[in-house]
Structure formats: structure tokens, C-alpha cells
């Protein structure tokens, strides 16, 4: 077998295992009966109609808001952190690295339990729901944003900032006119990773919800206790398409693929 046909076989398998379940789920959502059969029996849109009811739309919108807020806050925190970690040597730097990147190694489940206990001991139970979820999501999404921004800072040509300074640009104007435009894709990528990670998280969210304030993933998990209905298939497809669509749009606008796959020469 030539290397190319071997590669092709691997790629086909990856696609089958990745797309297969998704396509099956999508097909199931069009069942005419209320049983999750594959191949679907008959055709109806009734499950999709239910998926678009408030019962499902509310947690979906909740997840979206949570994801966007998480992405914005993580990115805002990640920017100065990435600067500090890539540019300066200072006492406590190692500790800061561990704190920022630690959650990447830790199971989100543990972070979730920990956060829940802290809130309980501190008598802050009333913050469960959006506020607690936001804090938890920022903690677990921050590493993604810091990493991507740090990488784009490190690939910045070394003398650009000195050149800007010699041309009369203060630190602030150098940041605004030179550094930020050049790490823009890194920032966007970081924010996007944070959003997707937040939107798809269930491990951490499980512990921090309250009635009426739960993300779509937790809602789906809860619903699964009663069995897998075609409604769930429809909801899953929506939950999948939302972040995918967002990634596609951002990719189009900012050339994200270039950043991820390392193509140079784009702003």
C-alpha cells in the first residue's frame, strides 16, 4: 500500500467515525414516530418544532450568552497575562504559569466540585447559576486564550517594537498600532477556542447550575435520563451547528486557518 492510499484510508476512517454518528443523529431527528430509530421511519418535522420551543431554546441562548461572556472575559484577562508571561521574568512567574495553565491538566469535574464547595463554605450559594458558571468557565477557558495569544506574541518579529519606538511611538501607541494588529488572529483564535470550550463543557457546569439557569449541555444530560428521544437528536444537531457556524464565520473573516496551520504573512 502506498503512503498516499494509507493516508486516504486513515482520513476516510476518521471521517466515518466523526461524521457517522452526527449524520445518524441528524437522520434520527426526522423520525415520524417518537422512537429513535435508524434508519428513520417516515418523515416529520415535529421534533424540530419541539426543539425550537422555549424548553430548549432557553438553555441554548443561556449557553450562548455564557460562552460569549466567557470568551470576552478570558481574552481580556489573557492579553495582559500572555504579555507578562512572554515578555518578563519576574518572581512568581512560575506560579502564575501554573495558575493559568493548570486547569488544562485538571479534570474540569474537579474544578467544578472545588468551586461548588468554595461557594458553599463562603456562603455564596446564591451565586450558583450564571455567575458561578461564568467564573468556572473563565477558569477552564483561560489557558486556551493565554496559549494562543502567547504563541502569536512569540512569533512577532523581535525588532518591530523598537522600530516603532524609534519612530516616535509611545508604548501605548506601539501596542495599538503595531502589536495588536499583528496578534489579532491570535486573539480571535483564543476567544473562539474559549467560546467553543465553554459552549461544549458539561463536566464543570454540572455542579454550578440552578433551576432556570443551566447551559444546553446540562439540559441534554438531564433529559437523557428519560431516554433518547428524537427531540434530543434535533437539539444535538442545533447545539453542534451553532459553534461550527461561528467558527466558519470567523475563519472566513480573519483567516484563522492560517494561524492554526502556521501560514505566515497575513496580518
Amino acid at each position, binding site marked *: 500500500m502506498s503512503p498516499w492510499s494509507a493516508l486516504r484510508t486513515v482520513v476516510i476512517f476518521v471521517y466515518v467515525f466523526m461524521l457517522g454518528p452526527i449524520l445518524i443523529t441528524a437522520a434520527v431527528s426526522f423520525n415520524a414516530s417518537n422512537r429513535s430509530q435508524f434508519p428513520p421511519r417516515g418523515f416529520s418535522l415535529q421534533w424540530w418544532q419541539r426543539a425550537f420551543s422555549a424548553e430548549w431554546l432557553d438553555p441554548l441562548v443561556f449557553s450562548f450568552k455564557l460562552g460569549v461572556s466567557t470568551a470576552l472575559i478570558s481574552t481580556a484577562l489573557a492579553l495582559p497575562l500572555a504579555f507578562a508571561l512572554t515578555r518578563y521574568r519576574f518572581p512568581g512567574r512560575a506560579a502564575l504559569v501554573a495558575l493559568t495553565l493548570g486547569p488544562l491538566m485538571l479534570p474540569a469535574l474537579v474544578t467544578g466540585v472545588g468551586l461548588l464547595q468554595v461557594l458553599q463554605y463562603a456562603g455564596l450559594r446564591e451565586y450558583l447559576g450564571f455567575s458561578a458558571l461564568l467564573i468556572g468557565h473563565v477558569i477552564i477557558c483561560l489557558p486556551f486564550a493565554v496559549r494562543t495569544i502567547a504563541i502569536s506574541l512569540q512569533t512577532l*518579529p523581535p*525588532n518591530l517594537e*523598537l522600530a516603532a519606538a*524609534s*519612530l516616535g511611538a509611545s508604548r501605548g501607541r506601539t501596542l495599538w498600532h503595531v502589536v495588536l494588529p*499583528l496578534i489579532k488572529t491570535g486573539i480571535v483564535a483564543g476567544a473562539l477556542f474559549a467560546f467553543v470550550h465553554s459552549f461544549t463543557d458539561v463536566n464543570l457546569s454540572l455542579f454550578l447550575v440552578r433551576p432556570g439557569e443551566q447551559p444546553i449541555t446540562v439540559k441534554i444530560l438531564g433529559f437523557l435520563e428519560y431516554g433518547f428521544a428524537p427531540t434530543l437528536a434535533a437539539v444535538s444537531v442545533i447545539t453542534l451547528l451553532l459553534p461550527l457556524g461561528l467558527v466558519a464565520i470567523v475563519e472566513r473573516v480573519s483567516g484563522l486557518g492560517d494561524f492554526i496551520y502556521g501560514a505566515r504573512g497575513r*496580518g
Partner: protein
Amino acid sequence: MAELRLAGLEKRYGSTVAVVGVDLEVREGEFMTLLGPSGCGKTTTLGLIAGFFAPTHGEIYVDGRAVAGLPPFRRDIGVVFQDYALFPHLTAAQNVAFGLRMRNLPAPDIAARVREALELVQLSGLGERRPLELSGGQRQRVALARALVIRPTVLLLDEPLSNLDLKLREEMRVEIAALQRRLRITTVFVTHDQGEALVMSDRIAVMNAGRIEQVGAPAQIYERPATRFVAEFIGRMNFYSHGGRLIAIRPERAKLTEAPADGFARRGTVKQVLYLGATLEYHLELEGGGRAIVEAPNDGAAPRYGAGAAVWFSAARENCYEIPAR
């Protein structure tokens, strides 16, 4: 245009000394070269003048005004970097305009001066290109235009030719030197290339181990080196101890003769002859130890010798130079 003065400049990194006791005066409109091997402190000195870091001791005066305490963006000093450091997200014209925008000039003035600067470096018509769409030589010109357009008091050039291929490098040498003379802009040029230094400079400051060894016009540096280091670093040199004094003879100032010359003469044997076209290079072993190199013009007049020939290595008195004791 301004005069630049470095007084007792010193830069330490912890216990490492990068530059120490550097005193240097660069006259108004002068082309001064800092020449030395890598790690000699020349680029550090440039960074200190530009204000990229602060000196440990000493002061920098531009037109008599102390500037060592000023941040780089308040110094009005133009810098051309070795890697050009063009802003990749901006076009050539926007790169050149950058310094003017930072000075908040009105847009029409900026446009006019950018056009003028691009013309000066013969890049008219390429203003809309991005750095990646330009050749190495063109990037170099953009960098030069960007540094000149702000009308800096002093222009600093950090090995700007080292990334160009040989032919282009030789062209740019002449071009930059001509441009500098036309604009009469006080310039400090950093290089490790002695050829560049000799061709381009009004004066050269030879640096070694963080110190300036000698400052002088190219001919002075070459013909009257103040230290053994300078003598060895620029061109090649034959050295001999003679009564406790150090005698230096350039290979092109020595001769191979049948009889000893009135001046310096040692008997020797030709070990190797290198045919270089315009010159012949003889490598000798001298009687009583020691080696010598003689560069003879291939002018048809000088006698030729083959390997193994017994000859006199001779130099007239005026071609023997005594390195001053320190």
C-alpha cells in the same frame, strides 16, 4: 543634523560588561562607523544611543543636550535595523508614514513627505506593496526611507547590509554613503565588515571587548593602527619584536628581494605561493622562526619566486610601523 557625544558610557548586565568607558564625538554631518567583531559592544552602543536601554553609567549628548534619560520615542533618532523590522501589516508607504503619523502631522503633509522619501530611495511606484512583496534590497530602502522621513537628528544603521547578497551589498554601500553625504545627516553605522567601514566612513571607531581601541579616518586606522588588535582586525599584518618594540608591516608594503633592504630585512624561504590574479601572495618561513606574508602586485615588473626559493623579506623604513606601547 546634530553632533553626538558619548561620555563615559557603560552598560553592564549583572556582572557582564557589554560596554565600558566609551567616549566618542561624532561631528555634525559625519559618517562614523563602529567596527568590531561580534560581541565587542558596538550594537549595545547603538542601542544606548537609540534609547532601547539605559546606560549603567555615562551620558549621551545630542547637540549638547543630555538624552540618556529620555525614552526612545522622544529622541528623534532614526534607526535602520539589520532585519529591517518593517511592519508586515502595513504597506511600504504606510511604513514610511508611521513616524509622521506618530508626530500627528496633517495627512497632506504626510503624503507629500512619504512620496518624497520614497523617491529619495528610488522606490516611487512601490508604495502600495507590503514588505513581503518586496525584495531584500527594496525592504532595505523602505527601512532607510522610514528612518529618514522623520528628519532625525542622528541616523543609526545596525549592520543594514549584512542580509543582502554580495553584489547588492556593494551597490548599497556606495548608495547609502552617497545619500548620507547628500543629506549631511549625522550617522553612526555599525558593522563587523572592515571593507564596508573603510569604503563608507568619514571616521571609524574600532571596538573590542566593550571598549573603543582607536578612532580615526580610514587611512589612519589602516596605516597607523594604535593597538595590535586594530592592526590585526583590519587587513592583515606581519608582526616582529625588535628590541622590545612591536614592528608591524603590511603584506602589500613588504617585498621579496635578493639582497636585504635598508630598513627591515629577514632571510626566509618561500613555502607557498597563492596566485590571486591581480596579486601574488607569498607565504614565508623566516630564519630563526616566524612567518611572513608578502603581497606582490602582478604587474610584470616584480620578480617571481617559486616554493622553496631562498629570499630576503624586506621592507623600507617608512613601511615599518611601530605599534605604540600601551
